[in-house]
């Protein structure tokens, strides 16, 4: 120290200061060591991630095609959506954006707010759809307000489109955004909020295959989320195209018949009895599946609520989600089972009609008085009295055996979601519906034997039964999938192989074989042939040279034939053709239209006409006078038709 230092230890005080300074800088060095060398890798990763953004390129769903493999029933076309990305939201409150965005992009503010609340509260959300199908004006607005709303982005997205008239709506189903509940389910693993999935119909059943794999653009963004650079692009992989078994000509005529029917409500379903392929499946009234893509608008939502609350329930697929008493169509499996179980025999199938039956003190009448008909006549004339007595001979156990053999106590296994289970007679059923002390009585067996009260089944289950009778006992699983087409190069890691239909429940035999001895089979078929061709209840639709075998039915709604107004009985007609070499099986149900032969059968005739033209290349013959019952052995040989259906056998 140059100057006189008499104050307190200046030298050591300077030393203290210097040490303190060194200590402070050393502390910074230690912190640097920790941040850069110990944790450097970790921070570098976070720093990189915040400037790299993966912008998804949504993959188009596979198309759904008619059975020609060409005509599209549902496809995807690109539209522009305005979306809001979470990463760029920063600390802005999502809710506060709803109002300005709703005004600027002309979307409904309440709906937008709902979406923000619903999707924004999910931890995994990455983006929210603000406006679907944005106009060029909307896109220009988003681009012009990049600074004000950096969290907005315009994204191209495939939009699902369906036939606007609601054709096949119940079969195709529709798509929509995945719900929070679905996100938790294991089969939707890997999806994120806002992703589009099939919510009904084939779209739902085959969602895994139809859904593509999203691609992405890897971009560099600045702190405000503006794209600065693009690093790489992974193209999306489209979903697999689905070829259905639907024959558009048959589908169109089936839907038209329902549309023009008295009540405009009902089902027509057509199946190839030789393999279970569903050629047409119409349920009326129908709905426009495109409606679900408009649900983000006020009008769309109102439309949706209207459809949802429509008392006619257009969203229900009546073929698989509704149950009806089969009425007299029930006599067909009864006839087969009666023969098989020995309640009647080939040589002696005659039972008394009696105009009805007295059980206890209750008389249940027949629609006519048929004397003591044989089985063939009983079917042709639809003699109730005959089947009351057949039912009593078989007993409840016999009827239950029949139900089990025809799989009527199970779902058919059709590849559509939410198929309902039939209700079939049993002692438990009676107890369940009428109390613990309700014992099964003979009168209940009478009811169970003519397709009312205890028998309530789906049209598709009935069609499957008739198809099995047609082909001699093979119960195929009805299905709409013909083929899923492969996507990608074989052997590539993202290759998705094609596949054909397999029952969703793989433990079920397809077909389930019900051994019906051929002579018994012929006897029942003769009866059904007579319904149309031998002055039976369906004689009006007879086609010469194309033997339709069928059975009318009337499903009791209030009491059989009692109500003639709004709650009239449902009219059934089940059939197949040609009688001894079946190609096509058909079920028709017109709700609340009254007696079976009257409404359901003529509708069916139009479908057969179309089928005939298609496969025979000729005009269908008109109804001709009653001919003599042909024996199976001398029936007119029908040239094997060269149809797609035939090729599929």
């Amino acid at each position, binding site marked *: 120290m140059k100057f006189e230092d008499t104050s307190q230890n200046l030298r050591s005080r300077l030393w203290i200061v210097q040490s303190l300074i060194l200590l402070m800088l050393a502390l910074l060095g230690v912190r640097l060591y920790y941040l850069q060398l110990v944790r450097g890798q970790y921070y*570098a990763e976070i720093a990189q991630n915040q400037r790299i953004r993966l912008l998804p390129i949504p993959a188009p769903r596979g198309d759904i095609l008619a059975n020609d493999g060409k005509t599209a029933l549902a496809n995807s076309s690109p539209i522009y959506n305005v979306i809001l990305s979470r990463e760029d939201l920063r600390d802005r409150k999502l809710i506060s954006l709803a109002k300005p965005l709703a005004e600027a992009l002309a979307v409904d503010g309440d709906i937008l707010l709902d979406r923000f609340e619903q999707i924004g509260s999910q931890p995994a959300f990455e983006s929210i759809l603000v406006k679907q199908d944005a106009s060029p004006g909307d896109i220009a607005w988003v681009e012009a307000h990049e600074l004000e709303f950096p969290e907005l982005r315009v994204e191209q997205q495939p939009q699902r489109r369906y036939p606007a008239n609601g054709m096949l709506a119940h079969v195709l189903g529709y798509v929509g955004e995945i719900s929070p509940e679905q996100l938790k389910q294991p089969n939707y693993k890997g999806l994120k909020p806002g992703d589009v999935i099939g919510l009904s119909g084939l779209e739902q059943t085959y969602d895994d295959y139809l859904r593509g794999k999203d691609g992405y653009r890897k971009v560099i963004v600045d702190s405000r989320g503006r794209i600065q*650079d693009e690093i790489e692009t992974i193209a999306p992989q489209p979903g697999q195209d689905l070829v259905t078994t639907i024959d558009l000509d048959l589908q169109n005529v089936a839907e038209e018949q329902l549309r023009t029917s008295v009540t405009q409500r009902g089902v027509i379903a057509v199946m190839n009895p030789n393999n279970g392929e569903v050629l047409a499946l119409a349920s009326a009234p129908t709905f426009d599946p495109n409606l679900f893509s408009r649900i983000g608008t006020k009008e769309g939502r109102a439309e949706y609520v209207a459809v949802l609350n429509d008392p006619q329930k257009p969203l229900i697929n009546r073929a698989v989600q509704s149950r009806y008493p089969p009425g007299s169509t029930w006599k067909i499996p009864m006839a087969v089972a009666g023969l098989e179980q020995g309640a009647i025999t080939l040589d002696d199938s005659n039972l008394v009609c009696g105009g009805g039956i007295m059980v206890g003190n209750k008389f249940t009448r027949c629609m006519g008085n048929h004397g003591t008909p044989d089985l063939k006549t009983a079917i042709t004339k639809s003699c109730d009295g005959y089947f009351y007595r057949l039912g009593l001979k078989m007993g409840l156990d016999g009827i239950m055996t029949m139900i089990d053999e025809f799989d009527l106590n199970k779902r058919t296994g059709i590849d559509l979601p939410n198929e309902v289970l039939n209700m079939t007679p049993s002692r438990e059923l009676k107890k369940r519906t009428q109390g613990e002390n309700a014992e099964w009585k003979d009168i209940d067996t009478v009811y169970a034997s003519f397709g009312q009260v205890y028998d309530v089944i789906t049209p598709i289950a009935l069609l499957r039964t008739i198809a099995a009778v047609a082909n001699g006992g093979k119960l195929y699983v009805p299905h709409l999938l013909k083929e899923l087409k492969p996507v990608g190069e074989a052997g590539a890691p993202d290759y998705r192989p094609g596949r054909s239909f397999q029952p969703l429940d793989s433990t079920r035999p397809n077909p389930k074989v019900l051994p019906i001895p051929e002579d018994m089979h012929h006897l029942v078929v003769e009866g059904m042939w007579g319904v149309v061709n031998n002055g039976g209840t369906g004689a009006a639709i007879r086609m010469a040279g194309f033997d339709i075998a069928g059975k009318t039915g009337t499903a009791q709604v209030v009491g059989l034939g009692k109500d003639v107004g709004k709650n009239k009985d449902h009219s059934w007609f089940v059939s197949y053709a040609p009688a001894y070499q079946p190609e096509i099986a058909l079920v028709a149900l017109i709700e609340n239209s009254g007696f079976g032969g009257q409404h359901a059968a003529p509708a069916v005739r139009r479908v057969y006409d179309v089928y005939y033209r298609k496969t025979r290349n000729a005009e269908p013959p008109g109804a001709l006078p009653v001919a003599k019952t042909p024996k199976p052995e001398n029936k007119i040989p029908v040239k094997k038709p060269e149809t797609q259906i035939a090729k599929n056998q």
Partner: protein
Amino acid sequence: MVAMIQKRGLRDFDWLLAFLAIGIVGFGTLQIRNAQPTENYWVKQLIGLGIAIVAMLLVALNDYRKLINIAPAFYLFGLVLLVIVLIPGIGLRINGQRAWIKVPGIGQFQPSEFVKVTTAMMLARYFGKHRDGVLTLKEMAIGGLILALPIFLILLEHDVGSVLTYLPILAIVLFLSAIRMRYVVGAVVLGVLLLPAAYWVGVKTHLVKNYQQERINVILDPENADRRGFGYNTWQSILTVGEGGLLGADTSAAHSQSSLKFLPEPHTDFIFAVTAGNAGFVGCILVLLAYVILLSRLIAGAKRAPDRMGMLVIMAIVGGLTCQIFINIGMELGLLPVIGVPLPLMSAGLASLIATFIAIGFAISVQLRRFVN
């Protein structure tokens, strides 16, 4: 006498100190350019360096005793500047702080940086007299007053950060002016005990506002604090530093934290983070070493000072510089809350640069006259 100084000047001029300072500024300018490649801040910094070197030479070649003797005039001039900055129209308001004067051609100028030097001079003059005993309370009070005037004016600018860098100037002057050791120990103990207690009481009584608590939380746990709000700057700074690793990040310049604007104020308050990102741990340690050598050199100069006044002015400057370096880098490394304090010699900014070089000029001047008495 002037001739003698100039002849001796070549031998006694502290070339190492001067070149070390210029070297740090040069490296800093490179980082400013890295931080804002599209702006001309780095050019302004080079111009500022030229002005600063001239100012340093002017101070170095004048007798520091003469300068300190007229310190009251400088001090008053500084106070006037601090008043002027408060006048709307002249003072520029940036980020809620009215701390800048607009200078045509150069940009803005922050008087509080400059006033640090005049305050240090004033303190050195007052405490620089020959001393026999311990500090009296009256002396301490007058020292406190010298500091309080500029601090009061700076608080009116809402520039809390600058105030923090003033306090160690007085502390170090008092410490070296024979303040009783028991006061020092007492103050340290009291500080250690009272600070957390005061914070706790403040939180309970809501005297410490929510946003202030948030800022504290950010420092205690930057990882889990509000990374998008209060903690954003700290978190981004930590990421930038961390990404630097050993030798600097491998990210291209166009995609760096500062280019993509994730790191705020990269050329001023967060210049060290930019440096850390570009030059890595090795570069950072070299910068810290440069500061250590610079400060040690200044302290060595203080030890050789011919009088108490010279020693105090250098040590006051050392205290101010150290405190700024620690607060700034500490903030960038997530050790301290975000306070707008520039890093001496590296952050872009004219006033800070000139003030630091004037301070170094003082140190050189003291050394040049160590044999003259």
